[in-house]
């Protein structure tokens, strides 16, 4: 089934058209990658999908529900998970607490003033499981400020996965990762994609061609091509606009 349907999305900033009538869909169980040169408007697109920016025109449907005007937190509660290009965690807490916060929002209200969050065993278990999934189990009690950059990216992923979303919006999750870390993340995403729908914005072509069921190419806010990895590689427009003279990494 179609988890996410984007129709005619438009966003202007003054005279600049950042998103120029974008249509795309993400089916359950597929990984749909969005690639494009810098400045193509990929992060603006994700921000509109997550609700942080309001589009000027167009509609967004999430599992048959119109979410075009829903606030960020409501979309999150409906099952839209999002990771950030620039790591967006809580440095003053340890890794486990970070992930617990991610789960807390989805487990009832937070107008509890007395009982310590740390005492909620259910949250602790779930958070620990999420950390184990991304490979950070051993660093659960380390303050985030003491984590290496790659570990923080892993934590970022754990926080996105922990609440159990249905659709993942991943904004360049491999940015700044070492080769080993990227490979591990690719493995994780390959495992996960059947259980979720994933919209992946990435520059790492290796990962994209390995993981993507479909690829959309975004140039100047427009999708100039959408298809399988094979189709995209063969597409002349894409070659000129984005891949240029070089052969993509096979």
């Amino acid at each position, binding site marked *: 089934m179609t988890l996410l349907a984007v129709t005619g999305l438009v966003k202007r900033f003054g005279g600049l058209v950042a998103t120029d009538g974008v249509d795309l869909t993400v089916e359950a169980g597929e990984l749909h990658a969005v690639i494009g040169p810098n400045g193509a408007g990929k992060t603006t697109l994700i921000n509109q999908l*997550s609700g942080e920016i309001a589009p000027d025109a167009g509609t967004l449907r999430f599992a048959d529900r119109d979410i075009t005007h829903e606030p960020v*937190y409501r979309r999150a509660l409906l099952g839209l998970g999002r990771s950030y290009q620039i790591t967006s965690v809580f440095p003053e807490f340890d890794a*486990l607490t970070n992930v617990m*916060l991610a789960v807390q929002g989805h487990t009832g209200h937070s107008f*509890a003033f007395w009982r310590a969050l*740390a005492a909620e065993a259910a949250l602790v278990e779930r958070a620990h499981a999420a950390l184990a999934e991304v490979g950070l189990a051993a660093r659960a009690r380390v*303050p985030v400020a003491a984590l290496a950059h790659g570990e923080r990216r892993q934590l970022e992923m754990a926080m996105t996965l922990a609440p159990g979303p249905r659709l993942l919006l991943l904004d360049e999750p491999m940015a700044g990762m070492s080769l080993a870390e990227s490979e591990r993340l690719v493995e994780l995403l390959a495992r996960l994609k059947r259980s979720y729908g994933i919209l992946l914005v990435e520059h790492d072509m290796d990962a994209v061609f390995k993981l993507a069921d479909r690829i959309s190419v975004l140039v100047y806010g427009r999708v100039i091509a959408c298809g399988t990895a094979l189709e995209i590689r063969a597409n002349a427009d894409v070659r000129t606009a984005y891949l240029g003279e070089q052969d993509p990494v096979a």
Partner: protein
Amino acid sequence: MSAPRPVDAATPRRLGASRVVAAFLLGGLALVPVIASAIGEPYYVTLFTRIVVFALAASGLNLILGYGAMVSFGHSMYVGIGAYAVGILAYHGVGNGWAQLAVALLVGALFALVIGTVCLRTSGVAFIMITLAFAQMAYFLAISLKQYGGDDGLSIAARSDFGVFTLESNTVLYYVAYVLLAATLFVSHRVVHSRFGMVLRGCRVNERRMAALGFPTLRYRLVAYVISALVCVVAGVLLANLAKFAAPSYMAWQASGDLIVMIVLGGMGTIVGPAAGAAALLVLEEILSGWTTHWMIVLGPLIVLIVLTAKKGFYGVLVERDAARAHAERETR
């Protein structure tokens, strides 16, 4: 096998220097009336009541300023509401403490809900400005209440009567204030580690992410704002009783500034810091004003110096050092 209990970096686990200082502070404050009567200086009870009252107000503001990053430059307005509730009711012959307290809390909650809803749509500097503006409005309102003293303020004939006890005795007033402060500190400690407190602290660091994690952040911040306002209201009730006077100056923006100075001086984002800061500032004021009426000329640059150098506050520095040591010990185990 269950997962290890998480620790957030703000909790020092061992008996560090900060805990000792906190114990000394609270223990010492408990003994003030005893010591004062022993050395025959009843004035100290009055002085320290003032310290406890401001420690209470500062602790209230700290909930949203230190833990929530909401820099309200208008919280002294709520102190004023508490004070004027006592004053106006007393003026009309209602000396019952419970009635005064109820009215103060009700009016305070109403103001906080409305003002908070308006102000929390902004953040950063705009938030500072708009809270300041609202405080000014309240200040002008108080001045314009000619019937209740206007510019000169309102005298209060008798202190609040709570039935089983009254606040007429300086010692009773002191201990009521002290118990309220201790209770507030204890409850704050629980709140800060509770679900609610963690949402607040998360919003302080990264509100955008909190929304993306499914939290309707405005709701929580508003509730925190109202709670902190009500603590200041209670401080205002006590202040009016202490001075037997309600003045517009309680709501002046300089008073809000003083509260912020106390919080930062002691240590923002710690439980005991604001109380320690209030004690330090008021004791300093007391000492300096004994030397010269122009002591403010020292206080001003001192504040600048504190901001430039001791950003964490003197108590905050201790807390941080203890937390670092505790973490280092855990790592080596």
